[in-house]
């Protein structure tokens, strides 16, 4: 259970190109399907309980008729110095060797301190047991657990897909290749605005994009060292 990080351990990261994002929210839908995210329903959503591990934030700039809409998909940034990690009293959230911020569902007792400390507001709590209107439970992904009440959850970078790729690579005695791991959101983006891969590999697509002139990170002045890189055009419009 000790840290086993080596030079060849992949450090997963994501790049999102805001100039390509159309705000279609296909990533949101794909994430729901892949990760068995609960359906909140009208009443609970109105009370602020809807769960979207990735959400597209929409900000309007300017007055009519010069209105511009900015779309920003926000998901768990898997910060290298995550503020959510030191404050969980039972170690339900911790940092893995591969750079992921992991949430251990079974360990969470629901103090919700981690969610209060996340500046990106990407943590979601299960206030009640999830209700799945028939026959939607048939759409469950068998590789992902369904969370009961009292547990905190958030984006895992589709860790089930990461593990699957790593197991397959292990069986074939090779390292994980570029493009082996595709999280659901990245897979479903129609404009291919999102990329995912190993940041520790300087030749991977995410590493190259992260070195681009347009790269920046969300609220990195807070010192959280987020691992999601946003590409934003230097020119307005």
């Amino acid at each position, binding site marked *: 259970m000790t840290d086993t990080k080596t030079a060849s351990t992949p450090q997963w990261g994501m790049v999102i190109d805001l100039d390509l994002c159309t705000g279609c929210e296909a990533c949101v839908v794909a994430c729901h399907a892949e990760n068995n995210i609960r359906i909140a329903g009208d009443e609970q959503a109105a009370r602020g309980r809807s769960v979207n591990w990735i959400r597209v934030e929409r900000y309007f700039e300017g007055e009519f008729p010069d209105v511009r809409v900015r779309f920003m998909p926000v998901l768990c940034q898997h910060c290298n110095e995550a503020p959510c990690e030191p*404050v969980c*009293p039972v170690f339900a959230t911790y940092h893995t060797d591969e750079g992921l911020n992991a949430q251990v569902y079974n360990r969470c007792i629901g103090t919700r301190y981690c969610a209060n400390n996340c500046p*990106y507001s990407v943590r979601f709590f299960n206030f009640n047991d999830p209700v799945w209107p028939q026959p939607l439970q048939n759409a469950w992904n068998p590789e992902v657990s369904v969370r009961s009440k009292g547990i905190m959850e958030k984006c895992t970078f589709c860790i089930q897909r990461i593990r699957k790729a790593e197991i397959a690579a292990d069986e074939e005695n090779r390292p994980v290749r570029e493009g082996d791991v595709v999280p659901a959101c990245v897979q479903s983006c129609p404009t291919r605005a999102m990329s995912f891969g190993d940041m520790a590999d300087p030749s991977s697509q995410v590493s190259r994009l992260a070195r681009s002139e347009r790269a920046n990170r969300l609220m990195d002045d807070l010192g959280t060292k987020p691992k999601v890189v946003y590409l934003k055009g230097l020119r307005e419009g």
Partner: protein
Amino acid sequence: MSEPSGSNAMTGFSDARINADLLRSVFRTGKWWYVTVAVSGSVMLAAGAAFLYQAYTGIGIAGINRPVYWGFYITNFVFWIGISHAGTLISAILRVTGAQWRRPITRCAEAITVFALMIGALFPIIHLGRPWLFYWLMPYPNERGLWPNFRSPLAWDFFAINTYLTGSSIYLFLPLIPDLAMLRAKSTGVKRKIYSILSLGWRGTPRQWHRLERAVQIMAIIIIPVAVSVHTIVSWDFAMAIQPMWHSTIFGPYFVVGAIFSGIAALIVAMAILRKVFHLEAYLKPVHFNNLGLLLLTMSLLWFYFTFSEYLTGYYGNDPAEMRVFWSKVNGPYSPLFWAMIFCCFIIPVPILAFKKLRTITGTLVASIGIVIGMWLERFLIIVPTLAAPRLPYNWGHYSPRLVEILITVGTVAYFIFLYAVFTKLFPIVAVWEYKEGIRPGEESLTVRESEATAGVTAD
């Protein structure tokens, strides 16, 4: 010591009279005691049932949501831990500084501390998403590689509150032993047996008195830093987070001052009620309310100083995220509560407490009730507005409490009243031996204040 111990020249009260007055609550039960216990007991049970229902169906029946993940329960938690500083200030600080006027009120204050802590310690369990697993906060040996995270302020809370609760209980129990011996002597039957066991075989020899007084002195010295650390650590639940208007270095001292402030106010309320209900007018005298009122005035000014510093520096800092929270409190959706808090904690109490003519028992009581309400609002306003306005504006939200939270809040107040009523039935609420020790004439312990207070009082 040149007086026969049968009477007291200052108050004119005989020993027998003092015993009768102070032990009356233990030996005689009025109808209103039963009513109080019945009403508070049933409200308490209703709240317990509400909690069990919440644990069963999920915390979703409460009003908390995303982004306001902490609401009434954490407000109550901080509030009750704050109230618990009453006993420490009165009992410990006044003992250490040798203030003689503290004598009739030490036990009342220490009881408030223990019960407020017991209730405050419940809330971290009540607010959990999975409360049946609360014991995972304890470091116990296991085969699964589980261990609490000592870096988390909530883990520090666990140690701090347990230490304070243990210390306060012992600090309440030690000076209670001689009174338990007195109750043993005056009871019969099963009661006598129970008091015999509780009094641990106390005889009242000089050796025992010396050891006891020494122990109480040592405990008083230890418990003061513990109390300071407990509320500092509770404040660090917020200050250690990076949220706007939480991550403030002032929170440690701010909360301690606020705790002592609300603690004294709660003590005054409790004393005023006890004085009326148990006819202790000759023991809990205007001088006590006057002195506590002066302390309360000092704490009100200190509290305002800290609040003003906190808000002014935030305002000058002009950090956008902080200013959003700031304005939401000052002239936004939370402004009615904010200005009510300033009214209740500063604008109303200071004139009442500053003028001697107004600093009567009624005056201090009115000020104290306002302060208790105002300090509850202060806790609420520290927690909720920050959570309601997170950095990314897309996620702003609001909070309104639901029935279960209100019921549990009221239920814990009822629980407090219940515990207090049972306490006054089992033990004398004024420490008899300590009171008598203070009124012996010729003792160097008799201060000018005390003689002022006792002069002119006739035995009625």
